[in-house]
C-alpha cells in the first residue's frame, strides 16, 4: 500500500491543514515510509488471530464511573484560552449549513 499526491491533499484538507506543493511531496514521502514500515506486519499470518483493540488485558475491560455529577461549573476556565469569547460563549467565524 502507498499514498499518492491526491491522498495527501485529501488528508490535509480533512485535517484543515494547508501545505505548499513541495511540502506535499515531502509528506507523501514520509507517509509512504511510515506505511512501508508498518506494512511489515502483513508478513505475519494473522488468519486465526482476532483483532487487537487494546494492548491491555481485555478480560478486565474498561474502568467505569458512577453516575454522579462531580465536574463542570467553571465556565471561566473553559473559555479562558479561547481565541475569542464573549459572555461565556466561544465565538467562532460564522458557520452556516
Amino acid at each position, binding site marked *: 500500500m502507498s499514498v499518492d499526491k491526491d491522498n495527501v491533499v485529501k488528508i490535509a484538507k480533512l485535517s484543515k491543514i494547508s501545505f505548499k506543493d513541495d511540502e506535499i511531496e515531502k509528506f507523501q514521502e514520509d507517509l509512504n515510509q511510515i506505511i512501508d514500515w508498518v506494512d511489515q506486519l502483513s508478513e505475519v499470518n494473522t488468519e486465526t488471530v482476532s483483532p487487537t483493540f*487494546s494492548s491491555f488485558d481485555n478480560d478486565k475491560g*474498561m*474502568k467505569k*464511573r458512577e453516575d454522579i*455529577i462531580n*465536574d463542570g461549573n467553571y465556565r471561566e476556565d473553559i473559555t479562558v484560552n479561547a481565541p475569542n469569547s464573549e459572555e461565556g*460563549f466561544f*465565538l467562532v467565524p*460564522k458557520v452556516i449549513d
Partner: protein
Amino acid sequence: MNNLLRGNTGDWEIVIGIEVHAQIISNSKLFSGSSTSFGADHNTQVSFVDAGMPGMLPVINSVCVEQAIKTGLGLNAKINNFSIFDRKNYFYPDLPQGYQISQFEQPIVGNGMITIDLDDGESKNIGIERLHLEQDAGKSLHDQHPSYSFVDLNRSGVALMEIVSMPDMRSPEEAQAYVKKLRNIMKYLQTCDGNMEEGSLRADINVSVRKPGDDLGTRCEIKNVNSIKFIGQAIDYEAKRQINLIEKGDLIEQQTRLFDPKKGQTRSMRSKEDSHDYRYFPDPDLLPLTFTNEFVDEIKKTLPELPDIRKKRFIDDYDLSSYDSNILVSEKETADYFEAAAENSNPKLVCNWVIGELFSVLNKINKTIEDCPIKAEDLGELINLIDNETITGRIAKDVFEIMLNTGESPVSIVDANNMKQVNDLNEIESVIDKIIEKNPDQVNALSEKPNLIGWFVGQVMKETQGKANPKTVNEILGKKLLKKG
C-alpha cells in the same frame, strides 16, 4: 393495506429506514462527571473532558451502559458483551475534540425487532439493525452576532443511543408508528424521556422509491426531523420528489437533506464532498467495553412491563378490546392513568370515559394527561357512582364538568348539588302520572307511533332534572302506556 404511490408510469413503493438519536436519561455525561440537565446557563455544564482539553481522558458512565443494555433488551435485541468505541473524525466548531466517540463496527447492541401497531388495527414487525452509544455535540447559535457563531458546549458529551432500523417501513404512517413505538418503549424503560421538542429524540430518515419487486433505489437521508408530524410530511414530500425526478428521466443523487417545516419540503444540505469521510478508528483512550451475562441478566430482572405485554394484560384482565387497549398503552401516562382510575372501578366504563370524555376535554383545554385537572381516583369514583346507580349517566357528565373546573371529588359535588339519582318508585310514578294526565293527545297517538315513548322519557327527565333512574322510568312507562299492545 396498499401503500403504493401512483405515478405517471405506474405504482411506486416507498422504502424507509430510520436512525433515531435518543438522549439517555442519566445524571452525568457519557464520559465525564458534568451534569446533563436541560436549560442550564451556557457552558456551565462543561468539564475539561467535554471541552476537548489536551490530556483529558474519558471514563465511561456505568449507568449509560446499563441504559443502553436495558433499551436493547426492550427492543428484543442481541446484547454484545464485547463492544468497541471508535473515533468518528470531522471538523465542526461544536465538536471540540475534533471527533465524536461513537461505536462503529462492534456496537453494544445488535439485531432486534419491535412490533408497530397501525391505525387499521394491523401490526407489523420492524427489524432493528443495531443500537450503539455515542456522544452528543455542542450547540451553535447563529443569530447572536453578524459575523460570529456562538458555541455552547453544555450538550457536548451527553450520552446518546443511536438506534438504526432495517429498511422495513413502506409508508409515512408506518414510519410514524415506528418512532412512536420506539419512543413509548424507551419511556416505559425510562431510558429516554422521548421529548422531541427539547431534542431528546431526533430522527434521521432514509427514503428511497422503487417499482414493487425491484432492487432498492438510491436513498436520500433527511436529517434531524423533530416531530412525529414532520416525519410524515417529510417522507411524503421526499417520496413524491424522487418519483417525479425518476419519471422525468433523471437519476436520484444520494444526498443529505433538511426538512423545512414552514414549507413542508425537503431541500439539499450544502455539504462538501469529503464530509462523509469520517476515518473511523478504535479510540486508543478507551478499552473494549465488556460485561458478563450475569450483569445482563440482573438488568433483565429490572425491566418493567412493556407496552405489548401491558396491552395483552388489558385485553385478558380487563376484558377490553384490542383496539381500546392499544390506545391506552400507546402513551405510558395514559395507561397509568387508566389503571389508577380502574383500580377500584369498572374497567370497561373507565376505558370508555378516558378514551371518550377525557380525551376530548383534554384536547379542548390543550392539556396532556399528565397535567389532567381530574385525578384518576376521582374519575374512578365518578364511574362507581354511575355503576351503583347513585347518579344517572346524564348527570355524570355535569359532575364531570364541575370536577374539571373545581377539582372537587365527585361525591362532594353530587351531595352539594343534590344530584343523586331518584330511584324511589312512588316518586317516579307520581311524576309519570302527572305527565300522562297533562298530555292525553300524546297518549292517544302512542298506538300509531310507539316511538313516542321516547318523548315521555324525555319529559320525565326534564321534570326530574335528569335524575330519575332511566331503567325505572322505562319500566313504569312501559307498564302504564304499552301494556295494551
